[in-house]
């Protein structure tokens, strides 16, 4: 029926080589995030940044071989749509995915990736999470195939509340969050942490509103106002954040906002001048950290992709860390096989722009330094015409956000080891 001829043998050999070759010329990475709809602006910024850092990695050949290429998939911010996109990713043979926006999506993806990898041990998928911060993903739901490069919501809340606890003027705290796993985690952690550190602080409001569905936040702001809150804590992001601060500004609400994503591009414009000294954020980096080793890179990005629209500017330092660590793992493993990369990523230490970071092997949570910062007037330098519109006197606030004349000023830096928290993860390794 079938005689093995030398030509066949050669063909087999060649095809076997290609099939087995895990060190391809170009390594595609699927970016699954909202590229349409209510949260599309956030997804757009992430995509541009990943493309930019991939270009940088390719130019400097940091992988020691394969070129990285980002392929965009529109998850529309919905778990169902993102799962359909994951299916497309798998069908097209891409083995590495990255996602960040919405923990609801991340939870669905982790489950789907786990199942897929169990059934297809020769076609495993690696999942790099750059922004979904539900603590469960590195605790009860931890997975060998999932790596988180953002500090989880409990870590951020721990840092925020430690900072807040020092302010004796804070008596009443109001919580407003999106009603899904992440928003609920923020609310839970805020209540637990404050009760532990400052039992005298009263929680005067604890709102969970539907994610991406509220267009008019005025009723919530009226409620905050009536509660006599000294401080509002919110994990809102994207348009849920910008509409909230816009409504707060419209109603003349003077309460400071302690936020997770107050600096996420698009959020500063609507509040404008009224946000000075009032909007605080907790992030791994911002444009005015000193010293700012990322400054050159961020400026190069902003020159190439920065607005209009004004909200597009460099934001996710953790996206860079993720990609550089991935490149390093590929280089060390000399392979683009997800399992080989994962084994190298586990426990990897990396000298980031803000100091050494570590991908903790026990739960795949990146441990990195964090910053708390507040909106302040950007520095007016008489010698620099680009700062002509700025009115601030503080040299530290060198850059503004979205041409508003307001930039972030560091209140505190929290060292990496301080942010680390114990994990309940019982990692199952293949």
């Amino acid at each position, binding site marked *: 029926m079938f005689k093995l001829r030398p030509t066949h043998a050669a063909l087999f050999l060649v095809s076997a080589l290609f099939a087995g070759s895990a060190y391809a010329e170009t390594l595609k990475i699927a970016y699954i995030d909202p590229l349409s709809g209510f949260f599309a602006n956030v997804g757009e910024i992430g995509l541009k940044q990943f493309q930019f850092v991939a270009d940088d990695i390719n130019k400097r050949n940091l992988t020691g071989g394969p070129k990285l290429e980002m392929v965009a998939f529109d998850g529309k911010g919905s778990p169902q749509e993102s799962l359909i996109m994951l299916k497309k990713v798998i069908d097209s043979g891409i083995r590495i995915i990255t996602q960040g926006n919405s923990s609801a999506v991340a939870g669905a993806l982790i489950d789907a990736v786990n199942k897929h990898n169990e059934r297809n041990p020769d076609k495993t998928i690696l999942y790099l999470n750059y922004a979904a911060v539900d603590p469960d993903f590195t605790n009860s739901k931890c997975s060998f195939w999932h790596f988180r490069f953002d500090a989880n919501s409990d870590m951020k809340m721990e840092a925020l509340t430690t900072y807040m606890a020092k302010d004796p003027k804070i008596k009443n705290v109001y919580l407003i969050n999106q009603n899904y796993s992440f928003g609920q985690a923020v609310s839970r952690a805020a209540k637990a942490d404050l009760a532990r550190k400052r039992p005298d602080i009263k929680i005067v409001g604890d709102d969970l509103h539907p994610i991406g569905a509220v267009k008019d936040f005025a*009723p919530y702001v009226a409620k905050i106002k009536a509660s006599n809150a000294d401080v509002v804590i919110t994990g809102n992001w994207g348009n849920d954040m910008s509409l909230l601060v816009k409504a707060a500004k*419209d109603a003349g609400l003077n309460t400071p906002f302690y936020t997770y994503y107050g600096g996420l591009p698009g959020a500063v414009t609507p509040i404008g001048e009224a946000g000075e000294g009032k909007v605080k954020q907790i992030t791994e980096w911002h444009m005015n950290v000193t010293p700012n080793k990322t400054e050159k890179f961020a400026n190069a990005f902003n020159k190439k992709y920065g607005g209009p629209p004004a909200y597009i500017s460099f934001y996710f330092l953790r996206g860079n860390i993720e990609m550089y660590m991935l490149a390093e793992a590929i280089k060390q493993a000399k392979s683009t096989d997800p399992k080989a990369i994962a084994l190298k990523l586990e426990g990897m230490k990396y000298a980031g722009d803000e100091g050494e970071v570590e991908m903790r092997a026990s739960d795949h949570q990146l441990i990195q330094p964090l910053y708390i910062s507040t909106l302040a007037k950007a520095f007016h330098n008489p010698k620099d015409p680009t700062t002509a519109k700025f009115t601030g006197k503080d040299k530290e606030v060198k850059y503004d956000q979205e041409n508003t004349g307001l930039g972030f000023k560091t209140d505190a830096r929290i060292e990496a080891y301080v942010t680390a928290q114990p994990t309940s993860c019982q990692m199952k390794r293949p």
Partner: protein
Amino acid sequence: MEFFLISMLNGISYGLLLFMLSAGLTIIFSMMGVLNFAHASFYMIGAYFAYQISTYIGFWPALVIAPLLVGAVGMAVERYGLRTVHKYGHVAELLFTFGLAYLIEETVHLVWGRSSVEYRVPPSLDGSLFTLYTTTYPIYRVFMMAVSVSMLIGIYLTLTRSRIGLVIQAALTHPQTVETLGHDVPRVFMLVFGGGSALAGLAGVIGGNAFVTEPGMAAAVGPIVFVIVVVGGMGSLAGAFIASLLIGVLQTFSVALDYSFVDLFARLGIAIGPDAPLAALWDLTISQAAPVLPYLLMVLMLIFRPKGIMGTREG
């Protein structure tokens, strides 16, 4: 008191925006019997047109031009689409407008992209008008209310006092007679559809910069508009007005009510712990359920009073 007054104002202004949205839909339904699924899409293109025009010549011209353009689009849709489909009955019309909604959304994707656009409140309307106790009230919200109320008066006067309004009303009940008298009834229907679309477009111009102008905005308001029309009574303008205000105020105030079944039972002396069966449901506060309340209202209305608040037709 401060909270009550501010919430009342917020509720009324939100309700008036909802009225602007639903007025066109209910007029088209009452005059032509067409349930226009693409109505919210006209709201969306109103916002996008206004954004585009305002980048060139400013907000004020856009306020006038954008609704007119949307009206023109609406008339074209009626003339070259709906009129042809009309003879196949209501189901065909319904399917036509359903498809149209998708078509418009995809067109918006192609022209303006999938992300939101920077359509902002003009500087002259940005700021606060007055201060009530300690809360400032933004000019733009008052402007929204003013536009909506003048629109209501405008529609009322056009329908009851003007010649074209009388012809429209006559064409409703006695199309043949009106035709024999020498009026072009299809043209009247075209004007009605265009006018209804223009009203949605106007709501888009106002609502687009008050909130967010993005391709999902039509889908976000689509269902609530239908709720208003059903609750108000199919085809009743006055009913739509009452229902809009009712739902606006209901949604605004329900946000403030942090009561759940757990609290209710606690008052009766029954404690429900987190381990009770269906604990998540009992623990749900009214404020969390706020987004669902209008739909609940619609379902209840359909059960107990199918013709709506002011509807004349028996369900």
